[in-house]
C-alpha cells in the first residue's frame, strides 16, 4: 500500500499512553493545588501543626513510601515483558507489584483510621488539609490497585495489542502515583521540620 505501508512503525507511545499522560497532567495539577493550599495555610499560621494536634510520624511513612516506589520496577518490567509477548512474565511481575501495593494500602488505611482517633479533619485547618491530601493520595493508590487487578483479569485471556497498551498505560499511571506519594509524604512531613 505505497510508501506509507513501508513507513508503518508499531509501538512507541501510542494514543493510549498519550491519553494517560493527559490524565496524569491534570491529576498532578490537582495535587499541586492541594500542596499550594497547604503552604498558603501554613504561612498564615503561627504554630504548625497547631498546639494540641499531633505531629505526623516521620520514619514509618517515609519507609512505606519508599517501598511503594519500588513497585515502579515490576510495573515497568511487566510492560517490557508484555511488549516481548512474554505473557507469564508479565502476569507474575504484575502480581509481585500488586502484593506490595495492597500491603501498602492496607497498612496506610489502618494507620489513617488510627490517626483519626487522635485528631479529626474537623479540628482545624491543618488537620483538614492534612487528611484531605493524604486521603487523596490513598485514593489514587486504590485506583491503581483496581487497575492492576483488572489488568491481570484481562491477561487471563491472552495478550492483544489493546491489552499491551493497557499494561503500558497502567505502568505509566503507577510511576506517576509513586512519585506523587513521595511528594505528598515529603510535604506532610515538612510540618515536623
Amino acid at each position: 500500500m505505497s510508501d506509507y505501508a513501508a513507513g508503518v512503525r508499531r509501538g512507541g507511545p501510542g494514543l493510549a499512553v498519550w491519553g494517560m499522560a493527559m490524565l496524569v497532567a491534570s491529576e498532578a495539577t490537582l495535587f499541586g493545588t492541594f500542596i499550594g493550599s497547604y503552604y498558603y495555610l501554613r504561612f498564615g499560621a503561627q504554630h504548625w501543626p497547631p498546639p494540641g494536634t499531633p505531629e505526623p510520624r516521620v520514619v514509618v511513612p517515609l519507609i512505606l513510601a519508599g517501598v511503594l516506589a519500588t513497585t515502579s520496577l515490576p510495573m515497568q518490567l511487566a510492560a517490557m515483558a508484555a511488549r516481548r509477548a512474554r505473557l507469564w512474565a508479565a502476569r507474575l511481575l504484575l502480581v509481585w507489584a500488586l502484593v506490595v501495593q495492597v500491603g501498602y494500602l492496607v497498612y496506610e488505611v489502618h494507620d489513617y483510621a488510627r490517626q483519626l482517633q487522635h485528631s479529626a479533619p474537623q479540628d482545624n485547618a491543618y488537620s483538614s488539609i492534612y487528611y484531605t491530601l493524604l486521603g487523596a493520595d490513598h485514593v489514587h493508590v486504590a485506583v491503581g490497585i483496581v487497575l492492576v487487578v483488572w489488568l491481570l483479569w484481562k491477561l487471563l485471556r491472552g495478550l492483544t495489542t489493546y491489552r499491551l497498551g493497557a499494561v503500558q498505560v497502567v505502568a505509566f499511571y503507577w510511576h506517576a502515583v509513586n512519585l506523587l506519594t513521595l511528594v505528598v509524604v515529603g510535604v506532610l512531613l515538612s510540618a515536623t521540620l
Partner: protein
Amino acid sequence: MSAAVYEERLERMWQSRPGVLGWVMTTDHKRIGLLYFWTTLVLFAAGGAEALLIRTQLIQPNQHLVGPATYDELFTMHGVTMIFFFIIPMTTGAFGNYLLPLMIGARDMAFPRLNALSYWIFLGSGLFIYTSLFLGMAPNAGWFDYVPLASRQFDPGHAIDFYCLGIIFNGLASTLTAGNFIVTILKLRAPGMSFNRMPLFCFAFLAASWGLLFALPSLSADTIFLFLDRNIGTHFFDVAKGGSTLLWQHLFWIFGHPEVYILIVPAFGIATEIIPAFTQRRVVAFPLVAVAELLVVFIGFGVWAHHMFATGMPTVTVIFFAAATAAVVIPSTIQVFAWCMTFITGNAQFKTPLLFIAGFIFMFVAGGLTGIMFLAVPFDQQVTDTYFVIAHFHYIIFGAAVFPIFGGMYFWFPKVTGKLYFELPGQISFWIIFLGTNLLFFPMHLVGLAGMPRRNYTYPAGLGWGADNLAETIGSYITTVGILLLLGNLVVSYFRGPPAGADPWHGATLEWTIPSPPPEYNFAVIPKVSSAYANWDVEDREEDRRRLAEGVMVLDEGHEQPVSSPVDGWFAEIAEMPHDSLWPIVLAVALSVVFVLLLLHLWMGTAFALAGVMLALLGWHGEEPEETDA
C-alpha cells in the same frame, strides 16, 4: 478500482446507526459537535433570559420587578451559565469538535468514545445545575462564590452545594474534552502537517485545551474544599480555626483568569480562519500569531491576583501580578495588528462573517484597552467591583468571544448544512447586534466611573446613574432582536437556502476540500499537506485525487486513522478507531447518580453508585477492537 468504489466502501464502513439510537450511541465528532451546539444554544437562551431580567430590573432606580433574593440567583446563574454552559461548550464542544478533525485531515478525535462521554457528562451537569433553579435553590453567591458568604453559616440550604457539585461535574467534561483535543491535535494531524503547517485555528484550540487542563484542577480543589467545609465540617476557609478566606479567592482566580483566555482564544482561532477566507490572503506574521495564541494562555496563568488587588495583599506580591497583566497584553496586540494588516494587504470582502470579525476586533481592542488599565493597581482598586469592570469584560466576553462565534456560525453554516445563508439579513443582523451591544455595554463604563457598584439589585436616584442604565437596558433589547434575526436567518436558510457546494468561500483549510455536509468518514483519502493553507495548495489537492483513484492512503480496511509524530507530523502508524458505543451515556448516567446522591448526603448510596461507575467502565473496556493476539 475507481474513486467512487472506495468512497462507497468507506461509506459502508463508517455509517452509523439510523434514528435516535444513532445519536445516543454516536462517536462521530460531527454528530457530537452538533449535539453540543443545540444544547449550548438552549443554555444560551436561558442565560440570555436571565440577563434580560437583570437589565429590566435595573431599567430605572428603585425598581422592584424582582426581589433581592431572586436577583442574586439571576446574576449568579447568568455568570455560571454563560461561562461554563455556553461559551466553553460552544467553542470547544461545538466548533472544536466539529471542525478540528476536519482541519487536521483526521477522520475522528483521538478518543471518540471519550468525546461522547464528555458530551453526556456536560448534558448531565447542565440538567443538574438547572434543576436547582426549578427547585428554587439556585446558587446565589455569585459565580465567584466568595467565602464566607458562601459558607454554611451565611448560606444554609443546598444552593451552594449545587454550585460546588455542578462545577466539579461540568469541569470533568471540560477536562476530558481538553485532553482529547490535545492528543488529537498532537497525534492525528495528517502526515506532513508539521507544527508550522498547522492552521492557526488548531493553535488556538491547543492553547485553550492546555488552559482547561491545567486551570480546572484548581477550581475543582477549591470547590472540593468548600463542599467539605459545608458538609463535613472542615475548616479550609474558616479563619477562626486557622483557615483563610483569601485561599478561596486565590484558588478560584488561578482558575478564573486563565478561564477568561480559554473563553476568547478559541474565538481568535475562529477569526484566524474567517480572515484568510474573506481576504484571500494568508495571515500576516503567521509564526507570531501562532505563538501569541499560545502565549496569551500561558501568561494568563500568572495574572490571577489582579482580581484581588483590593484585598489588602502586600504591595510586593501585588507587583508580580500587575507585571504579568502588563505582559499578557502583548500577544493580543500582536494578533490585532496581524489581523488588521491581513485585512489591508489582502482583498477584504465584508460578507457577514468578516463583518462579525471586524466588529470583534473593534470590541476586543476597546475591551482590551480598559483591561490594560487594570495593571495600574491604584486605578484597579478604584474601579474594581464597579460597572466599569462589567463593561470591560463584557466587551471582551461578548465582543471578543461571542462575535466570532456568531461569525463562525455563518461561516461554517454552508459546510455543516450544505446550504448558503441569506447575505442581506445576515449583514443586518450584524449591524443590529453591533449597535445593540455597544449601547448595552458602553454606558457601563460611565456609570461605573460614576461609582455604581456591581451586584446591586437596585440603586438610588440622584447619583446620575439613571440615564446610563436606561440606555443599557434598551441596548440589551436591541441585541436580543439582532440575535433572534441571526438565528431566524440560519433556520430559514436551512430549509430555503441555495445549495452551497463544497467550497463557497474558497476557504483556506482542509474542511473545504470535502463535500458539504461532510461524509461520516470525513476524508476519502488522507490529504497531502505542505502548508497551513492546504486548500490553496492546488497541486496537493490534485495529488489527493490521483491517490484516491489509485487507492493510495484511502485506509478502507476498518475504522483506520493514521497517527503521526507530535511535532513534525511524520507518519507513525495506523490506529484502529472504536465504533459506536452505548457505554459513554451509561457511564454519564451513573456519574450523574453519584453527584445527586452526594448532594443528598447519601454517602452509602454514593459508594454504591461509584461501584456502578466502575461496572460501566468495566463494560466500556470490554469492547476491544477485534484483532488477533499480538
